[in-house]
């Protein structure tokens, strides 16, 4: 049946050749029709089975790799948490608020270069996108990691002032964070307040997208409660702010890296599970089809023999 149809289709192809004198596209058009009509053959099923098995192997090994990276990241994160909370305390105690007459804001997106890790990157970007949707004039974005840059570039490309990549392959170091902090300080962008958007690691299966506040020197010196700190002069405040930006970034990097690895672990675990299900279904259809082919051949032989 299928063969006759294709033969007809090819015949019409040849008459069209007479009309248009253009054969190749017609033949190319015929190929998918042929594939749609024919039942899934044994060979095509076994090929799919093989490719799904390969995918499962890849996702399984990715899971193992990210599990190893995750344990390391979590160990390092535990050591870094006090640094982050210490830097945060200063802003809270001194009750620093952004200057009302300087509306410029800085947003730092902490993601990485690598995907296949669930929604860690998208949830950071979504947070920033809702902010940018309200006000895209006074907010500038620093993208850490290719993923956030790739998503934000299309609609809010003009808001990006710095993009960092080559992050996520190896665990982030303080030098990485201080390079970013240095670049932000030297970018000549005048902002009164800012925030670091990152994923805070909660447990192996969960993370929350949070923000850390960052303030400029002008907002800090204008804070009403700064006097609770003793013997501060401008230089000490400036030095401390520079350092605390680097420390906060470092903390956010570590939290981000840890939640990324844990999320990749769960994502790859799910992927291997799904691949396993698919393999089961495919091998069932493979066996069924093989049996059908054998039965058909037997029927043909028997009916041929009885017709003699």
């Amino acid at each position, binding site marked *: 049946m299928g063969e006759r149809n294709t033969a007809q289709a090819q015949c019409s192809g040849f008459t069209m050749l007479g009309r248009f004198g253009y054969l190749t596209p017609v033949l190319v058009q015929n190929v998918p029709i042929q594939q749609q009509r024919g039942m899934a053959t044994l060979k095509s099923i076994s090929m799919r089975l093989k490719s799904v098995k390969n995918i499962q192997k890849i996702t399984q090994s990715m899971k193992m790799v990210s599990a190893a990276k995750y344990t390391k990241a979590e160990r390092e994160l535990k050591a870094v948490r006090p640094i982050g909370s210490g830097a945060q305390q200063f802003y809270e105690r001194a009750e620093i608020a952004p200057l009302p007459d300087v509306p410029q804001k800085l947003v730092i997106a902490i993601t990485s270069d690598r995907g296949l890790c669930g929604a860690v990157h998208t949830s950071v970007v979504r947070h920033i996108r809702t902010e940018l949707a309200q006000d895209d004039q006074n907010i500038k974005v620093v993208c850490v990691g290719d993923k956030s840059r790739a998503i934000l570039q299309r609609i809010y*490309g003009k808001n990006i002032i710095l*993009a960092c*990549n080559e992050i996520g392959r190896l665990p*982030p*170091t*303080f030098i990485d964070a201080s390079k970013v902090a240095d670049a932000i300080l030297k970018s000549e962008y005048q902002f009164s307040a800012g925030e670091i958007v990152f994923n805070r690691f909660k447990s192996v299966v969960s993370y929350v997208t949070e923000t850390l506040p960052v303030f400029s020197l002008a907002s800090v010196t204008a804070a009403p409660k700064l006097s609770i700190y003793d013997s501060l002069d401008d230089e000490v405040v400036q030095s401390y702010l520079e350092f605390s930006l680097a420390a906060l970034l470092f903390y956010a990097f570590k939290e981000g890296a840890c939640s990324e690895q844990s999320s990749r672990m769960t994502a790859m675990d799910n992927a291997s599970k799904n691949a396993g299900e698919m393999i089961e279904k495919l091998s069932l259809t493979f066996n069924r089809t093989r049996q059908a082919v054998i039965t058909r051949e037997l029927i043909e032989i028997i009916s041929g023999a009885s017709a003699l």
Partner: protein
Amino acid sequence: MSAWRQAGLNYINYSNIAAKLLRQALKPEPKAEALKRGDAHIRITKWADGKPIKQHIFAYDRKTLFINSTIKKQIFKGKYVKCKYIK
């Protein structure tokens, strides 16, 4: 004003230099581990108007050829001259 700030450094640069020297002064066993923490891999590009800004490397020798990421340029009388081939 401290000397390092007058030299154009900020506190981040200053403390990183101090940390680097401290790492180098460690005993060999902790040193290997500490040196790993001392390098950075991040690459930072400046952006403006939705596009990355090409960073130019300035060369002093007027006949020096150098390769930018996309185009090859030659410094000629202190100006950039685009050239197709490297002699």
